[in-house]
């Protein structure tokens, strides 16, 4: 690893990102908590109780897109990473790296959007930082947020907890965010523009935990999409996961845009979606709870956890044949032919 250079694909959230993290970051910084490679770390608070901690950086282009902007995204991303351990997000920090020449009006729009999203999610931004870099040394605005959440007693949600026989659910259609960004970058105009699904999921998770405290796994399929995240879960839990292609919700306009560009919605980023893995007996109650929440109206059972092929995700295709559903490798690029 040490003789190469960092490639863009190291940041795509797929196999190369995993290799970079394991071979450099975990190798030097690793400890029992970090090695879990969870969306957020759960640690004992010195005075008792448990807290969840996480941090995330945002470098999206374009900065403004249908359904959100980098400010909203920076709050949702961290709130969601905390929520994926079952924690109740409470405090955020916000750090800005701003490029010289960036319009103040746009900066204010981004910060106002952060504020509105934080308020909607019920979290407070309690510390911040700004740095300005020379023109050409940044790409408009980069944001880092960190967050703290409080863990209710008795909650044990982890990427490593999936059990054979469990059921896999998602809270709605996948691929919206990735395709919204990609069509905007490509300058493709659709009669109804694709909207990012960017949303804070903590309230949905609270309703889910109220209905089903025994949730084994929660994970938000961001970079790399549903397929990549399912692979991470299969690896962490050392189980197989079998997905029914016909049951995975995809909005028709997203499927059409993906087809046009030669992309796959199962590998496209989401910013308001979660995967839940629960004991089979709990699945009906959980599905009802999800569907009664505005962010879970299109929730669906998409598959189950199996004994066969541990660490692998299998897709049962529309024709009933079975094939591997692999992790993303490289960057998702539009087709040429």
């Amino acid at each position, binding site marked *: 690893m040490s003789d190469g250079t960092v490639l863009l694909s190291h940041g795509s959230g797929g196999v190369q990102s995993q290799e970079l993290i394991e071979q450099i970051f975990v190798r030097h910084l690793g400890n029992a908590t970090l090695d879990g490679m969870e969306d957020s770390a759960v640690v004992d608070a010195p005075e008792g109780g448990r807290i969840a901690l996480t941090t995330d950086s945002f470098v999206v282009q374009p900065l403004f897109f249908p359904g959100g902007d980098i400010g909203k995204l920076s709050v949702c991303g961290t709130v969601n990473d905390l929520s994926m351990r079952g924690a109740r997000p409470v405090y955020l920090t916000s750090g800005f790296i701003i490029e010289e020449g960036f319009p103040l009006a746009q900066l204010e729009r981004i910060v106002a959007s952060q504020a509105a999203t934080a308020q909607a999610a019920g979290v407070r931004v309690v510390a911040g930082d700004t740095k300005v870099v020379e023109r050409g040394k940044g790409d408009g605005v980069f944001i880092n947020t960190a967050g703290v959440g409080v863990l209710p007693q008795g909650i044990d949600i982890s990427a490593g907890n999936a059990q054979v026989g469990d059921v896999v659910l998602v809270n709605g259609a996948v691929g919206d965010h990735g395709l919204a960004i990609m069509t905007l970058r490509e300058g493709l105009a659709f009669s109804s523009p694709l909207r990012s699904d960017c949303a804070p999921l903590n309230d949905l998770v609270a309703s889910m935990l109220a209905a089903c405290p025994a949730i084994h796994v929660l994970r938000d399929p961001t970079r790399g999409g549903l397929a990549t995240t399912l692979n991470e879960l299969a690896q962490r839990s050392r189980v197989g996961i079998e997905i029914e292609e016909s049951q995975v919700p995809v909005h028709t306009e997203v499927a059409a845009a993906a087809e046009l560009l030669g992309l796959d919605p199962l590998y496209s980023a989401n910013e308001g979606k979660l995967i839940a893995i629960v004991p089979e007996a709990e699945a009906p109650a959980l599905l009802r709870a999800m569907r009664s929440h505005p962010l879970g109206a299109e929730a669906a059972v998409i598959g189950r956890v199996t004994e066969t092929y541990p660490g692998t995700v299998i897709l049962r295709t529309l*024709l009933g044949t079975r*094939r591997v559903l692999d992790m993303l490798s490289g960057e998702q690029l539009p087709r040429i032919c």
Partner: protein
Amino acid sequence: MTQLEGYRDPEIARRLVAAIRSTVRDTLRVIEFCGGHTHAIMRFGLRDALAPSIEMLSGPGCPVCVTASSDIDQAVSLGSRPDVTLTTFGDLIRVPGSVESLQEARARGNDVRVVYSALDSLQFAREQPEREVVMLGIGFETTAPTVAAAVLQAQREGLRNWSVYSMHKLTAPAMRAILDAGEVAIDAVLGPGHVAAITGWKAWGFMPSEYGVSCTVAGFELNDILQALLLLARDAAAGVTRVSNSYGRGVTEEGNRTAQALMQQVFCRSEAAWRGLGVIPESGLAIAPAFADYDARQRFGLPALPEGPIDAEAQRGCRCGEVLRGIRLPEECPLFGRGCTPVHPVGPCMVSAEGSCAAHYRYRRVAG
């Protein structure tokens, strides 16, 4: 039911599969030219669903895969000039040359930008008049017209710092080369839908008239492909050999005349080096003499056919060449899934998302 759902309706698909099975007596060997078809066939799990009635072979229809390593080497070397910005489509940046890929050259400091259209490349040239912006033109009849349009636009604007390094290729000469070589026995051809949208489906009439095999132009959805295969199966059962169109919503007999005219105006046919197939006369599209100002080869004094190996990866045991000629399945390469994966690819067919090896690896089948 929406339009897209219809093309993927599992019930319709099962009926088409059953019809194909009852029509084919033993096995029909069909080659799909286009990498988009290879990808769709693997993604939908069609090989398993149709075996043994249909045996699918993959052709050379992945524009990234057929780009010669010598062309990559020349592009890397051009991009090493301090005044040059290279712009390129998609995953060409990951294709290995004999020394390095454009992606590795970029990480080393070369200015290489991925663009989604040649017009984005023009925009770079307008914004950075002090830099020489070179568009690496790859692709078949589908992308060549868009690059031709960009050349005309550059001429209208009088842009002085933009040019095209054309590696564009034509589909029919490659198909002829494969059939002329006589290495593969095929019964029928699944014609490339996107290419035929430009050329028209009658451009594939040489398949029955010269080679005695049926060809039907097909779309890319599950039921598009199944319907086309059923048509080929029925033709074979009836002893009919013909060219036909199974992609009526996208393809006409004559094709896109505007796009054809753009190509004829801006390009001229040239010999071209294909990975796996070697140098094929009249199979490439060079910039026509009238547009020499926009031809990167003229501008930088580069040879039309660069020296050096066309299939550099063959020395490392890679069988991409045989995969591109349809004589070997990706799984039959000793490196497949072992020394060669999409993360650590050896040859171009594993690099490009449209490559056969990448499709076979990514959508690999499982038992049970």
